[in-house]
């Protein structure tokens, strides 16, 4: 019955509007960005000339920002993982009736505007704030030392803002573990740490892979944290793309930077998935197909 031509067309009618929207407003814009990155000239008089030097020029001009971006994003991702894994573990296995409340607390930051959240960190890490005062009391910070406008502040902001993206997938994969497997390991005389290392950790790996990607990608593209918590010395590649597009209107350089940004992240993601297993990102699709 499902072989009549009309029935076979149904999925395409259902998908049509969405696929057209995604192609027109996601794929096609990438083409235009690539095209814009090969323009030359000055503002008001840009022309398409296959100007490949935009890439080499912007790379040598902004190599510091590129390097810094990937260092900050990597450190923030590792920190988020260190905070998120035990938290997700506690919610999944020790949460009890508090499970829902704890999950709500984890996503609560999403209910406040992103910018306000970051500006709140400006207050918390401020020069006369509690954190700086405490660090000074214990001589962990010089008398005239500050946290704002340092890499520490930017990384702290990145870690905080993308933490829920790390917690949720790890929680979801831990939650799905059949606890009888862990009990079986213990019945077979595995110690608690052995059972964790050999059973729980491998089974939660897809969540860790998804979480690290979901944290690293937005952290690498971010410019809000560096804008509010850093200074020019902490500018990331996103800050440069934003100001080149919106303030200086040097569109070709901006487009070249954004394009390289996308390609580098794509390469990192592909390599990472190769090593970590492709289940994580496309797992759902792989199962169904």
């Amino acid at each position, binding site marked *: 019955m499902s072989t009549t031509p009309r029935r076979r067309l*149904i*999925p395409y009618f*259902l*998908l049509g509007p*969405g*696929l057209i*929207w*995604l192609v027109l407003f*996601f794929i096609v*814009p990438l083409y*235009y*960005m690539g*095209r*814009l990155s090969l323009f030359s000239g000055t503002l008001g008089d840009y022309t398409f000339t296959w100007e490949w030097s935009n890439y080499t020029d912007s790379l040598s001009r902004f190599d510091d920002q590129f390097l810094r971006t990937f260092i900050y994003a990597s450190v923030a991702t590792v920190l988020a993982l260190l*905070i*998120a894994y*035990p*938290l997700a*573990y506690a919610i999944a296995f020790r949460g009890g009736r508090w499970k*829902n409340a704890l*999950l709500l*607390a*984890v*996503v609560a930051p999403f*209910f*406040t*505007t992103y*910018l*306000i959240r970051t500006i*709140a960190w400006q*207050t918390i890490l401020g020069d006369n704030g509690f954190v700086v005062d405490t660090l000074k009391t214990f001589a962990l910070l010089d008398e005239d030392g500050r946290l704002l406008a340092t890499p520490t502040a930017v990384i702290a902001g990145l870690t905080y803002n993308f933490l829920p*993206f790390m917690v949720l*997938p*790890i929680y*979801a994969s831990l939650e799905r573990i059949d606890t009888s497997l862990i009990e079986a390991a213990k019945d077979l005389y595995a110690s608690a740490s052995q059972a964790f290392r050999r059973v729980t950790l491998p089974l939660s790996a*897809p969540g860790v892979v*998804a979480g690290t990607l*979901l944290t690293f*990608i*937005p952290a*690498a*593209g*971010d*410019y809000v944290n560096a804008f*509010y918590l850093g200074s020019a010395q902490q500018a990331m590649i*996103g800050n440069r793309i*934003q100001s080149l*597009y*919106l303030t200086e209107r040097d*569109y070709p350089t901006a*487009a070249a930077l*954004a394009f390289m*940004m*996308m390609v580098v992240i794509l390469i990192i993601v592909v390599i990472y998935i190769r090593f970590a297993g492709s289940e994580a*990102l*496309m797992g*759902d*699709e792989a199962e*169904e*197909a």
Partner: protein
Amino acid sequence: MAAHVWKWLREHAIVIYAGIAVAYTLIPLLVIAVFSFNDPAGKFNFTWEGFTLEHWENAFSIPELNDSLLNSLQLAALSTILATAIGTLMAIALVRHQFFGRRTSNFLIVIPMATPEVVIGSALLSMFLLYFGASFLGLGSLLIAHVMFSISFVVVVVRSRLIGFDRSLEEAARDLGATPFQTFRLVTLPLLMPGIAGAALLAFALSIDDFVISNFNAGDFVTFPLFIFGASQRGIPVEVYSVATILFAVTVVGMVFTVWQQRRAERMAAVLPDDDEEALPTVTAIGTARS
């Protein structure tokens, strides 16, 4: 005694750690709420000066702030309706039908979620500039952008709902003589409704909170996050903190209500076999569907 304390600490270490982590996620939210009662001396609301209710009484007295809120609500409402409709249809096609091009479609849905916002924003701006010119930027360009980045999330949420769907209810409807369309309208859609509502809520939240992509494509159209961005360079009015606290409270209430509704619907229809499995479906869906 010391050994006793040590044992207790060892057993509860992870719970204590989790407690600290939760406190860490909530502290900035607390700071925002507390500083909405601040009475700052200068333009910048960064240090505590004294308690006042003034900025709660006048929460909606800044015209630019109100306009930006209305703009955001208008944009989010339009974007939510479009993205939810489009995304729901896609989810149904992906779960219920086998067809050529399925993997490509799945890939096209996942890839925008794995692209940094700054790239999406740059690409759209490039197209708008080259194809339409800067005068095109405004509500229209933002609507295009917001629907685009919301679709993927709607598909993910509705799809996770469809996968746990008891199809025997539909078969029963067909056996009782319902047409396919009647079955869809009277059985499938009502059972799917909590998932669609969750997806809509997520789309709304994504739209109303979006800064990066809007920053690139807004032109003169000022949304709430763009207003904050502009104001932050001159000193943010304390009223913004009050409004943010109000928005936070409204969202939490909406969220709790939706979850409650979802669980009620689940109990009534027994769509899912076990009750706690899909706690907070909307919020975990982002993680669940991709892990």
